[in-house]
Structure formats: C-alpha cells, structure tokens
C-alpha cells in the first residue's frame, strides 16, 4: 500500500513537473505567449510591458481561481440537502478593504512601470542622421514619401540602426487607416485631417510585415505593407539611385503603383477581379482621360472606384500612365501617343 502510494505520488509529481516545464518552456517561445521578436526599441519595451502585466495578471487569476476551486471541492454539497445552510456570513470589512487595496497597489505598480517605459516608447531619440518618411494611408494602399522626393507604394525601405521618423496622414477625401508593423512598434491611425507621428529604429535587417488595422472598406484585409530594413549604406545607395531613376522616369514606380493601387481590384494582369477587367482597354491610349479617371474616381450606382490618383505628383502620375499604356493598352491600336 505505501509502496503503491509512493509510485503514484512520484508519477504524479513527474507528470506535473513535465507539464509545468513544458508549459514554461512553451511560454517564452515564438509559438508561445510571446510570438513576435521585436525589431525596434519601442516594440521591445511594449513587449516588456506585456510580460510585466502578464505576470501580475497571472497572479491575480490564480488568486481568484485557486481558492474558488478549493472551496468548490471542500464545500460541495456531497448529498447534503438544500435545507442545510452555510454559516450566515454577510461580509467582513477588513477583508473587503484588503481586496480593494491589493488591486489598487498592483495597478499603481503597473502604471508606474508604464510611466518609466513610456518615454522610451513614445519619444524618438534625437539623432542627426534620422530619416523622415511620410506615410499616406489611401484606399487601399500605403504611399511612402522620402525627403528627396522618392515615392514608394506598399513596400517601404529603411536603414538599420537609424531613427526613422514617420508622419502618418490620410488625405481629407479618404477614410481612416492605421499603420501597423508589429515588430517595429505599435500602430498609429492615419485619419483625414489629422497629422500623427511615430518612430522606429530597426535593430536588425529583414522584411517585416504590416497591415492596415482600421477598417477602411472592401479591401481592408489586403491593405498590406512591408518594411524592408537594409544595411544603412545599401539603403543610402538605393535611395540615391531611386531618386535619379524616378526623375528620369526609368524606375519601376509605374509597375509598383499598378501592383499596389490598381491590381488589388482589377487583377494582377488587369484581367478583372472585384472590379471590371481593364486589360486591353482603349482608355489607356488616352492619357488625359486616364488621368481624369484616376484623379476623380467614378461611381456607378453602388460600385465605386475611389479617387486613387488624386494628389499624386506629376512624376508619379506620368509613371503610371506610361505603365498602363505600355502594358494594358490594346496592342493593335496605332494611335498611341506616348505618355
């Protein structure tokens, strides 16, 4: 009997340790409770905050559920009749006080740690070699503008180890969006008429996925973005090269805009999808009319094409018109006028 008990106890203890160790080792992994590896100081501090609150939250959860479970087992009726009552305890003032003040202290601790970490998350460190990028949320693409005039759509390139200051906006005629790349930090809304700021300082190179987090309409789910963090030297070279190429009209800007702006509704090849097919459309032989459509959008009943091209620089517009003419205009039409 005692021997069987020892075996049972050892087996139980072994199982508990195994499960516990498994749980604890799972918690900290990317498949556990901390699924992302932060790539910016802000994101890292937010994760610290999350782990810190998580510790308190787990503690409070146990404080509630362990006594509850114990009471349920210990004080189960076990066949006693309903007529039998427990003791007539109507309350206990100092206990009430304890479970009022206890949570208050825990909340003060959480708030204090938040205030300590807040400046590091919120305020961009002063830096001479910082990069300013304007992020424009549009239905349904992200447009990035660099200080030297370079434009990018949906894919932002950034240098590693340098502060990137983001100005996040949406045109007044657009709707709310929210720029969110979880590994680089929190999100910030792009709201018509409001100018918001955010920053990150990538700690490693790589491509980080992001998306629009505020419902913006039919293609909200596909309003994705990527941030490609590259070595600083490589980035500077890219930015300089891109500036020249875009000025000369020799960049891939036209293709990028088509892929980010047009293809989501009209298909990768313009074959149609949510919106009608646009491949081989004679309209693209008429740059002025195409421009008009892009700038004003169109509305037939409840089918709407947003004003995707409103506010584009002439350089961007020309790049798109040229791309559409070259790749989507009917091949047989001899009236091409160039773009």
């Amino acid at each position, binding site marked *: 009997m005692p021997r069987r008990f020892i075996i049972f106890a050892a087996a139980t203890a072994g199982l508990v340790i195994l499960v516990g160790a498994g749980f604890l080792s799972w918690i900290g992994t990317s498949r556990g409770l901390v*699924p*992302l590896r932060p790539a910016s100081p802000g*994101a890292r*501090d937010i994760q610290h905050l999350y782990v810190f*609150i998580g510790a308190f*939250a787990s503690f409070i*959860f146990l404080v*509630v559920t362990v*006594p*509850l479970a114990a009471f*349920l087992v210990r*004080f*189960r*009726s076990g066949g006693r009749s*309903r007529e*039998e*009552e*427990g*003791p*007539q*305890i*109507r*309350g*206990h003032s100092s206990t*009430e006080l304890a*479970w009022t003040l206890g*949570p*208050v202290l825990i*909340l003060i601790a959480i*708030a204090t740690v*938040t*205030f300590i970490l807040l400046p590091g*998350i919120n305020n961009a460190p002063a830096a001479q070699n910082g990069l300013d990028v304007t992020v424009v949320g549009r239905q349904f693409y992200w447009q990035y503008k660099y200080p030297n005039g370079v434009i990018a759509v949906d894919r932002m390139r950034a240098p590693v180890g340098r502060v990137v200051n983001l100005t996040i906006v949406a045109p*007044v*005629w*657009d*709707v709310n969006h929210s720029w969110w790349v*979880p590994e680089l*930090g*929190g*999100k*910030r*809304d792009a709201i*018509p*008429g*409001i*100018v*918001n*700021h955010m920053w990150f300082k990538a700690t490693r190179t790589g491509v980080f*996925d992001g*998306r*629009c*987090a505020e419902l*913006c*309409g*039919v293609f*909200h*789910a596909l309003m994705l973005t990527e941030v490609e963090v590259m070595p600083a030297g490589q980035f500077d070279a890219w930015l300089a090269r891109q500036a020249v190429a875009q000025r000369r009209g020799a960049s891939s800007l036209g293709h990028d805009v088509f892929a980010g702006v047009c293809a989501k509704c009209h298909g990768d090849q313009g074959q149609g999808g949510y919106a009608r097919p646009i491949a081989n459309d004679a309209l693209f032989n008429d740059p002025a009319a195409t421009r008009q459509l892009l700038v004003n959008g169109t509305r037939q009943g*409840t089918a*709407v094409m947003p004003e995707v091209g409103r506010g584009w620089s002439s350089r961007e517009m020309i790049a798109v018109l040229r791309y559409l003419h070259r790749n989507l205009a009917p091949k047989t039409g001899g009236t091409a006028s160039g773009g």
Partner: protein
Amino acid sequence: MAVRTETYPVPWYEGRFARWLVTTDHKRIGILYLGTALFFFLVGGVLALLMRTQLIHANDQLFTRNTYNELFTMHGTTMIFLAIVPVWAGLANYFVPLMIGARDMAFPRLNALSYWLFVAGGIVLYSSWFASGGAPKAGWTSYVPLSVQIPGSGQDLWILSLHILSLSSLFGAINFMVTIHNMRTRGMTWTRIPLFVWAIEIYALLLILTLPTLSAGLTLMLLDRQVGTHFFDPAGGGNAILYQHVFWFFGHPEVYVMILPGFGIISEVIPVFARKPIFGYRAIALSTAAIGFLSMLVWAHHMFTVGLPTGLQIFFMVSSMAIAVPTGIKIFNWVATTWRGNIHFDTAMLYALGFLVVFTIGGLSGIFLAVFPFDWQAQDSYFVVAHLHYVLFGGSVFALIAGLFYWWPKMFGRMLDEQLGKISFILVFIGFNVTFQPQHLLGLLGMARRVYTYPNESLWNTYNLISTLGSYIMSVGLLLILINMLTYGRRGARAPNDPWLGDTLEWYTTSPPPPHNFEEVPYVTSARPLRDLRRQLREEARA
C-alpha cells in the same frame, strides 16, 4: 347521446396569438422580449459561424470582401443592440416587478411600446440585406468618414434602426427606474432590494445618460450622408475624430449596460446555490454604482491610436484601470460567498462559476488594453476581439444562461433537464475557451480584426483552425440549450413554486405567476424575504 357543450364567445384580444400582440402584462412582454432577443442571438451566432468558417484557413473564398464586411457589421450590431441589451430588458421586465413585490411595471403601455419598437428596429436592420448596396458594412462602430462615404441604403437603414432601438431602450429604461423607485413593496428599502434589481437600476440610468449621445452622433452622420453637411468631414472643416468621441461616450457605458445585469444574476445565483447569504451586499451594490459612474469617464481608451495628447492618454489609462477595482471587489465577494457553503452544482450554478473564471480572464485582458503603450500594439487586433468576447460572451452570455436555467421554472412552470444542461455547460465552456483563447495570440502575431483573410503562415493557420473548431464545439453546446428549452422547457417535470429555495420574492408566488403576480406580499424585513418566511414557518411548526 349528444353532449351539449357551452361555448362562450372569446373576445378577439384574448385569442391564442392576439393576446400576445395586445398584452401589457410585464411577464408576457418579458417573454416576448426574451424570445425575440434569443432569436436574434441565434441569427447573430450563425453570422459568427459563417465568419469563423471563412477564417478556417488562409485565403478561403467562402465569404470575402463586402459580404464579409456585412457579416461582421451585422453580427456586432445584432449581438449588441438586438440580443444582449434587449435580453436584459426581457429578464428585467419579468423579474424586477416580481422581485420588488409589484403588480406590474409602472407604465405597462409604454412597456409594450418599448417591445414593439425593438421588433421594428430589428426588422429595419435586417431589411437592409435587401437594400440597394446590401447590408451595412462599416462595422458596428461605423466610424466616419467610411460610414459617410459608403454608398447604398444599408448604412441609412442601420442609422434608422439604431434610432428606433435607442427610443425603445430609453422608454424601457425610464420605465425600469420609475418602477424600482416607486413600486417597491412595504419594507423593501434600498439596502433590501435584490442585487439584480440594483444592477437594472444602474443599467437603466446608464442608458438614459448615454443613449441621447448616440442619437446625436447618428443624426449628424445621417445629415453628413444625406444632406451634405460636414460635421465629420475634414474637407469641409469637420472633424473625423469627433464621431469617435461621441460614439464611445455612449459605447463604453453600453459595455456596462451589457454586463451589469449579468453581474446582478451572478449575485442572485451564487448565494442561492451555495446556500449562504451574499458576501458583502453593500460592497457589491456600491461597486455596481461605482462601475456605472466610472464607465462614463473611460471612453477614449478605445481611441489610444488616434493620436491623443499624452496627458489625455494617461488620464484614460488611469480611469480605465480604476474600473478594475470595483470589478475585482465583486469577483472576490462572489468567491467568498462560496466559502463554507453547501454548494449545489445545478446547471445555473455551473454557468455562474464558469462566468467567474472566464470573466476574470476578460477583466485581466482589459488591464493590458488600458495600458496605452501596449494598446498601440493590440488596438484593433484579434487581442481586442478575444478580450471583448471574454467579457461579452464569457460575461454576459454565461450569466444569461445561468439566469435562464435559474428562472426558467418560474417563468414556464417546468424544470429544464439538468443532465442536458450540464453537458451543454461542458461543451460551451470548453468550446468558448478554445475559440477565443488562441485569438489573443493571433492579435499578438499581428492579425487585425475585420479581415476576411490573413497570411498563409503555419502559426496563423493553426490558431485560426483551433479557433474555428472551438466555435463549432460551442455551437453544439448552445444548440443543446435550445433543445432543452424547446422540449423539457415545455413538457418537462412540473416546477414547484420555489425549486431552489431562493431568497427573493419571485419565488413566493406560483410558477408561473398569475396575471396579478401575488395574492399578497409579505412585509419585507431583510434582503432575503423568502428565507425569513421559511424560517418563520419552521419555527411555527416547531412551536
């Protein structure tokens, strides 16, 4: 031999169906409310299952784009405005007059009007599926400018429906307050009214204080849409964030409108099944009032990412955290009530205990979200979806089911089947956690809410698959409750007047109660008049 039967002409308004249409009896209106709200709960649940099925793996093509946006908009609006808020109106209608020993509500005809406006609001909302452009698709929050720009009539019907439902809730709320203030039976002072009635008092007060704000916001949205004003249009000098302030000034108290009556039910069920008085009656009543007050000071914690000044964000973080204190007081008091009790695990009690566990998780994830730097990560992600379902399903719906099992014998004079009830609890409890726990992790991974697809990566697929399977398990459990209500609830064992040996006055009358509720109401000398009566009877028998 012919049998002569005497037939008496029955006036049309006492016909089998007509009497339900013309009724002003609070019990019938309560049942109508309950039935209609549960019907909408079923519809909203089906919409949720369709969404979970779409999300079962990445790039599924079942419901995409506009259809998916319609699904979550209708799901949210249905569950909040057509299921949870009115289901409390139903239970409160039936039980507030009984619990305070009243003959009926203060304004029986206004009561009927509230109900029929609720039906009208539901019909208007669901008619939008047939409107040009289809159902509304701007989310239940319907943020501008999207909700102003969206074409078609669905959004206008959404506005109209919410206007009608607001009126319905306002009339109901005024009725509840007047009833509670004026129609309590002799001896029932404010410290002797049942805690469920306390909860309904604050529920009604919050509706009266905040619904007009929603109506104002909706009216401005309608004007922006149809008349060409620019209240929310920055191109014309308006402000897009203003709508969010207005909406959440209503929207956050609305969260407590949906949970406080649930708290009330838990405060009724736990003591009765633990065979003990509630621990800390005054603390629970006061914390209900405190939550009601604080709930009007926290609205901008829904807006931490719009770029508010840091000082404001700190204020709203602290005020949101402050709500955790009275909520914690309630939870600790409920746990303490079970201490040294004689705990009976009937289905109502199981759901109440399940509520304690899952609502605690929902409350704790709320603390994460109150901390605004963390909220910058989690806002509008599946972490928020998980949190709000932990409080609205794990809180409100678990409490609702507890209340249904507790009060069903009184309402219909039949006992629901306990075995079926317990199986349903196991399925709902497991299914619920399997559905919503992985959604916390999806949010941390970066899954935004209101998306019909997501990146085709292994973790995203796994968590979504688990979540969808959980929702199917939960549905089976909920279906069992429906079957229980439709079979045993109509033809099961006859219920005695007081099957659980309750504490409150509704158990004093017959099951179901007669139209006039009580032959006489005992003089109330404590918060537990029925227990006092039982003791009195026992002592008299002994003497």
